[in-house]
Structures are given as structure tokens and as C-alpha cells.
């Protein structure tokens, strides 16, 4: 529907409303009720983003006050008009259409006609475009959720299978290794983590000893703090704490790195060069972390035991010699091996989860952020579940483990 630009000059009775204040944004609206069922509205002055809302309200009020009249809007004396004015005209059109009246524009200046030419009023449907997308019904969402769980589970299994296959291929043909810098990965995931693992494990040992001391003192059983700290750290706290630290450091790093590579088409570039991204990116990360985590765990164990010793010496009147003698009595090699076995498994899980989340990135920067978060959260969850499973396994395991 195109606007006509008829040139009619009807006498107009003026009662203009001056808008007080800024000179820049003065406008005025004058009305004349024609003899027949016409309502002439004359718009003059400057209609800009500052005044548009006021103009709009007034016009709507005027038009709705006369629901039986067709409207003629005269724009001859409009000095300034921008997109906000166009939006007002669109709304006028819609209001009139709702009242089943016609709306005609008169004396449209050339420069305004240009703005209006861009708008095809029939197809102009702007209502609600700022609202969020409508969600499908609950039933559909439930169905999609179930499908999602299935595909995620399937993808995870496929990923694990692919990673294991790639690892086997590489380990059986070490000559054809196509790995992303392994030593750099070990350095980043292992060496760089030593300070924080040491400090946190030391603190953990100290905290354990401190809490234990409060209880043990009641029974005069001070010396058993060595047992408690030593076994807890070596069997549970050491591997788990180290695993959690590495999840936050390396799990997140892998997800972010691979996720960003996905966005930059770097993974596609690898594929078209005939390089399997699983073998190039994932296998070395699994190896690197599976190697780093047990080493870090050992360091952490030592730091934790020393932390316990410091507290024991300071607040439980135990000598360092006494502490380590007691530890030596109760700690066995099998305990250390149990802890290390757990930590190797933790390492493999961390690398796989971090890489999996990275490959799942689609879209933009926000997706990389959620993938990174998801990697850490999933790692924490899986590590804890694995720990529980190992506890049960070790308890029921054949005496080989309990020497």
C-alpha cells in the first residue's frame, strides 16, 4: 500500500500545543474536523527520537477519540523527521486499520517520502520482535530433553570408543605418531601445576591434622594423627584433590582450546589435511595428563603428610621422628599404589571430558564458555563417582591389593 501525496489545502483551525522547554524538539499538532467523516491532523515541527513518544501518544488519543472518521495526516510543515517518525506512522496505520478507518498522508515532503519508501506497510509486523523466542510446549520439551540425553550418552560412548581406538593405533605404531607437542602438554598440565598442588595438599594435610587433634586429644591418642593424615591423604584426599585441581586447570584448558579451534575451523582444516583430530589432539592430551596426575599425586601426598606433621609437632607434642615412625608402621605400599591407580584413571577421565566438551562447541563465544564450565563440572562429578566405585572395588578386591 503506497501513500498518496495529494495536494489539498483545506483551511485549518489552529490550536496548537506548544511543548515547553527545548527549542530543538518543538512540535505541534493541530486538528480540524472536516465536514464529512474526515479528521484532518496537521503535524508540524520536529519529530525526533526525543519527542516521538509524546507525539505518538497524542495522535493515538486523537484518532481513537474519533473512531468513526477517516484520518488525513498533513505533513507539509514537518521540519525534521526520522525513523522514530516512521514508526509512529506505522502505528497510526495499524490503529486506523483496527478501527476500520482509512489513513491518508498529505503533502509528504520529498525527503520524508524517501524514508517511507523503505517501509512496506502491509508486511510491517514488528510486534513482539524483542520478546524472547516462544518456547515449544512442555510435552515437546520433555521429548526433546529425552532425545538429548540419549544423543549425549551416545556421543560420549562414541567419543570414548574413538579415543581408545586412536590411542591403540598410536601406541602400536609409534613411528607414525602425529601428536600435538607432548612435552609442552606435560609441562602445562604437570609441571606448571606443582606449586598449587603442593600448597593445597600441604594445607589439606594441616587441616586434617588440626581437626583430628581436637578429637584425639580427648583420648590421649595423639600419635594416631599420623595414621589418620597419612592414610586419608594417600588413599583419598591426595588423589581426589589433585584430580580436582587438574580438572580446573587442564580440563578447562582443553575444552576452551579445542572449542575455539572448532569455531575457527581449525579442526575442519585438520580433517581436510587428512589428520584425524582424535589422534592429533586427544591422544596426546590423554597420555600427558595420565602421566602428570600420578606424579602430581605423589608430590601432593608428600606435601600433605608434611603438612600434617607440622601441625602434629606444633599442637600435639609429637616429634617429627615419632610421626614418621608411626606412619611407617601403618602405611603400606599397596595403599600408595591404590592412590596412584585412582589418579591414573582420573587423569584419563579429565582429558577425555575436557576434549569431548571442546568438540561439542557450536556457535560462538558463549558456547566456548559453557563448554569450559561444563568440562569442569562434569570432571568433578565423574571423578567423585569414580572414587566411590574404587572404594567399593578396593574393599571387595582380592588380597592382592591388601598386602
Amino acid at each position, binding site marked *: 500500500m503506497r501513500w498518496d501525496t495529494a495536494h489539498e489545502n483545506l483551511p485549518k483551525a489552529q490550536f496548537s500545543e506548544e511543548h515547553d522547554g527545548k527549542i530543538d524538539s518543538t512540535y505541534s499538532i493541530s486538528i480540524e474536523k472536516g465536514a464529512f467523516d474526515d479528521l484532518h491532523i496537521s503535524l508540524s515541527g520536529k519529530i525526533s527520537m526525543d519527542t516521538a513518544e509524546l507525539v505518538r501518544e497524542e495522535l493515538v488519543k486523537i484518532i481513537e477519540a474519533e473512531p468513526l472518521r477517516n484520518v488525513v495526516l498533513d505533513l507539509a510543515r514537518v521540519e525534521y523527521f526520522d525513523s522514530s517518525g516512521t514508526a509512529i506512522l506505522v502505528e497510526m496505520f495499524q490503529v486506523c486499520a483496527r478501527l476500520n478507518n482509512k489513513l491518508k498522508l498529505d503533502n509528504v515532503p520529498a525527503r520524508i517520502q524517501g524514508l517511507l519508501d523503505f517501509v512496506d506497510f502491509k508486511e510491517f509486523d514488528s510486534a513482539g520482535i524483542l520478546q524472547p523466542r516462544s518456547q515449544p510446549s512442555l510435552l515437546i520439551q520433555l521429548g526433546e530433553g529425552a532425545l538429548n540425553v540419549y544423543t549425549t550418552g551416545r556421543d560420549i560412548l562414541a567419543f570414548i570408543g574413538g579415543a581408545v581406538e586412536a590411542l591403540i593405533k598410536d601406541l602400536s605404531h609409534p613411528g607414525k605418531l602425529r601428536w600435538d607437542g607432548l612435552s609442552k602438554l606435560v609441562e602445562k598440565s604437570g609441571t606448571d601445576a606443582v606449586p598449587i598442588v603442593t600448597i593445597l595438599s600441604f594445607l589439606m594435610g594441616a587441616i586434617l591434622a588440626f581437626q583430628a587433634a581436637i578429637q584425639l586429644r580427648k583420648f590421649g591418642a595423639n600419635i594416631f594423627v599420623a595414621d589418620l593424615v597419612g592414610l586419608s591423604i594417600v588413599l583419598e584426599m591426595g588423589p581426589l584433590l589433585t584430580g580436582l585441581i587438574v580438572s580446573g586447570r587442564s580440563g578447562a584448558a582443553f575444552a576452551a582450546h579445542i572449542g575455539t579451534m572448532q569455531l575457527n575451523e581449525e579442526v575442519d582444516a585438520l580433517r*581436510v589435511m587428512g589428520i584425524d583430530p582424535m589422534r592429533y589432539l586427544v591422544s596426546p592430551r590423554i597420555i600427558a595428563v595420565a602421566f602428570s596426575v600420578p606424579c602430581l599425586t605423589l608430590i601432593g601426598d608428600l606435601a600433605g603428610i608434611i603438612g600434617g606433621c607440622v601441625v602434629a609437632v606444633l599442637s600435639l607434642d609429637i616429634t617429627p621422628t615419632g610421626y614418621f615412625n608411626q606412619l611407617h608402621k601403618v602405611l603400606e605400599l599397596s595403599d600408595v599404589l591404590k592412590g596412584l591407580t585412582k589418579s591414573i584413571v582420573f587423569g584419563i577421565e579429565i582429558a577425555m571430558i575436557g576434549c569431548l566438551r571442546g568438540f561439542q562447541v557450536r556457535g560462538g563465544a558463549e558456547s566456548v564458555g559453557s563448554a569450559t564450565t561444563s568440562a569442569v563440572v562434569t570432571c568433578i562429578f565423574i571423578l567423585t563417582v569414580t572414587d566411590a566405585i574404587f572404594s567399593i572395588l578396593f574393599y571387595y578386591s582380592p588380597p592382592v591389593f591388601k598386602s
Partner: protein
Amino acid sequence: MERSASSTDGGSVAPIISVRNLTVGYGDEIILREVSFDVHQGEVLAVLGRSGCGKSTLFKAMIGLVEPKQGEVMIDGERVRSLADGGSEGLLRNIGVLFQSGALFSSMTVAENVAFPLQQYTTLAERNIEQVVALKLSHVGLTGCAKYLPSELSGGMQKRAALARAMALDPKLLFFDEPSAGLDPVTSAELDMTILKITATLGTTIVMVTHELASIFGIANRVIMLDAKEKGIIAQGKPEELKTSSDDLRVKEFFNRTAAGEKSESLPE
């Protein structure tokens, strides 16, 4: 800009790329239906069309990143398949790809990027690899930028570095995805000249997805035009011929750069 002469004896020599009844899409949506065409050795083929016509999808199907729903793409007589589906490394080694964003590995320097395919696929000693890398960088005019990281380069330089990497193994086939996107006219012209040099000296076959008319008229021997509604090819042939003698309005609008549905004096009747 002169185009290099190409061998147009497609009749006697088998085409190097053969697309047969290719149907591709994502999920339930079909983007292209039963598309067939050939690419001959040594020619520069431009794949063009309006936005959304399926150029990128065709591109990805030809390099094995998207599995076709039906039909096949044969390169050198061998079916193109992604690595995961059993594609051969040998085939992929003969293809060099320049992605629209360059897709340089962001954690490696330019030289390491260009050296990557060489390290993966050849047994060349390191100093020989360095020599090849320096040669490729000089081909694309990036001598002296060897130790820069991709993030330290301008868009045009990133593209050229990615081109050097795509050419590292002297592949028989090069695929370019919108090579001139985001480049200023001078850099774009320089890139075109580099591409011409490659075909002229190495006889490389080039397939490029583009809609830069200047590049198309400058270096393409043949073009195929895709259309979103037809989900297939609506025109094939030499660029000049399509511009002047096509009867299809869509083709005329494209080559004469006129708005859809608008009358223009420059449109030949």
C-alpha cells in the same frame, strides 16, 4: 587481467573432479539436489550464486567435510569421504584447502603452520622443510613474516599464509572458500595474480567459491552458478558468455550487479 589459457580438451582426458547426482543437506533440509558437473585438470572453476544458494555446502561436500545424502564426488577416480568414514589420506593429501577465515592454527607461528603438512606427510629433514616453507612464503609475498603468530597478522596476510599452507605439498587440487572476502581491492587483486601464477606454473586445478565479480572475470575459466530455489545449477560456462548471452534473468542480474527485480540500462536485452 589476463586469464591463463587452460587445457580445454575435456573430452579426451577424464575430468579430475566428477560430481554425480549429489544431494546434500543438513538434517531434514535439502540444500542441493542431484547436482552433477565435472572439473577438468588445470582449469579454474568458480562456484557462485547468491547468498544461501548452497555454495558452502557444495564446497564442504567436495572436500569431504559433509557426507552427501545421495550421489558422490570423485576426485581422480576415487570417492571423496571424510576420514571418519574411511577416506584415504592419499586423496586428502592431494587437496589443499583455503578456508574463508584462513583457519590457521592459532598456537603456531606462520612458518610452523606452513610446515605442518610437510612434517605430517613427508620425511624431509628439518632444514629442507625450512627451505620449502621459505619458498612457499615468498610465493605469497610473506617473506619476513615467518615467525609471526596468526593473531599478529592482518586479514589479508592471514589469508596468504593459509594459502601458503594449502600449497605446501604442491597439491593437484586447490579449493578456495571466498578467497577475497574481507580483503581490500588491491590485496584482492594481488591474491588473484598469485592464484594465476599457481595455475600457470604448476598446472594446479582450482575450485573457488566466490562472488567477487572482478575475480571471476579475472581468473575463472568456467563458472557454475547455483540457486537456492532450484537447489542446483542454473548456469554453466565461461563468465563472459554468461554475462552477455544468458537468457536467465537471475544470471544476468548476478553478472551485471543489478538489484533483483530492478530495471537497469546496463542489462543487455
